[in-house]
């Protein structure tokens, strides 16, 4: 199982909230997806991505539980593909920076899940990350590319 996550920073123009887009896939097809305006105002794109990664990790963990109960226990940590380098560094290297210390609980939850080997964050550029189309309106070429690629590739 793998998960893609992406966030668009401050694209809700009334309150300047960011948008979370994430999708979990199994057997090359997406099984759970979400496109949603975040409920708090992220002050940087890294913070927005961390909030999105947290939402994606929650869904991922939930699917891991279900797969375990159905007898398909996941032995490896589930990769979460994310396109923001600093968010990845913050989680994978346990290094909060001055500007991200205020994202406390979500950050510690991600840390915990990473240490428990439930998830691992991996970098994937936005143009090939299919969760991109869940966060913003795209032009035809990019939209089409995301929509028809198998989510796992």
């Amino acid at each position, binding site marked *: 199982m793998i998960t893609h996550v992406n966030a668009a920073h401050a694209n*809700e123009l009334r309150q300047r909230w960011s948008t979370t887009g994430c999708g979990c896939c199994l057997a090359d097809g997406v099984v759970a997806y979400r496109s949603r*305006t975040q409920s708090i105002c992220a002050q940087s794109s890294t913070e927005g991505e961390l909030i999105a990664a947290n939402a994606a990790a929650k869904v991922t963990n939930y699917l891991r539980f*279900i797969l375990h109960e159905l007898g398909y226990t996941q032995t490896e940590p589930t990769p979460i593909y994310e396109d923001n380098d600093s968010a990845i560094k913050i989680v994978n290297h346990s290094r909060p920076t001055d500007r991200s210390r205020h994202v406390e609980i979500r950050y510690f939850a991600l840390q915990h899940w990473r240490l428990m080997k439930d998830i691992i964050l991996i970098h994937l550029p936005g143009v090939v990350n299919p969760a991109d189309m869940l966060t913003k309106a*795209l032009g035809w070429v990019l939209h089409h590319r995301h929509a028809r690629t198998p989510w796992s590739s």
Partner: protein
Amino acid sequence: MKLDDVFRDWYLERTGVLLDKDLVLPVLRALQGHREVAGLWEEHISAILKGVGFQNTAFEKNTYTGQFCGEKVLLVRQVDDLALGCHQESMAKSFYSDIGTKLTLHNEAEAPFEYLGLVDSFDGYGVLQTRDYIKISTKSYIRRLLKAHGWDNPSPRESSNKPKPPLHESDVANLFNLAAGPVENAPKHKALKAEQGFGYRSVLGEILFAYVLCRPDIGYAVTTLAKFSSAPNALHYKSLKHLAFYLRQTQDWGIMYWRSEPVEMLPAVAYVPMTFDDSLPIIPPPSHL
């Protein structure tokens, strides 16, 4: 219909009047059954499924797993529709007869339960099972939606052009920034609705259902347009209609789940990449095929 105790209790609870048992109640419409029926049915079917070795998952009450005929099988229950995931059709048939016997009441000759064969639709999805992949789509639902609004015939120009994205990039800022339309229940709101020829909320709800079933590609468009459902203006109506037309052009799209190894007994269907524009590179199916 004679009054029974359950109805008298319900009436007493609701109005405080205890009805006479000899009263006769005319039935004008079909009754939906008792309130507790759903719970009783769930208890009943769960006990039967437990009896044949199924166990349900803690979070999803409608998903079961179990050993059946020595193999691991999965089961989804949508109230009284059952879908079984297993390797051999014979297993599904023996499962059907096992459950059928248990569901048959003492005064019935045969089970009130039908064997529908290979799943081709379940709970609103269309399901296509082939040797190499399983595809779920909402084609029939989208067609029904379009037909209900009289949008089912594409214009000749549209079928030759490549489809546009579900939401125009250039429109997004205007969607947020233009003044909100008349609020609900205002006379102007009704006038705008009559002018556009459809209800914003109802069409949005219908499209939302397609999104939830298996269309992640319209996710951002749907959630964005949903923000304006209480006071849409003419541009919001236009964007929503455009979204419906996008669905018309892409009604075959769905989600494909690729098998790790081909299943020989199912028909082979050629892999057709979802594309309208030949200048775009065709993305091959995953390498393990």
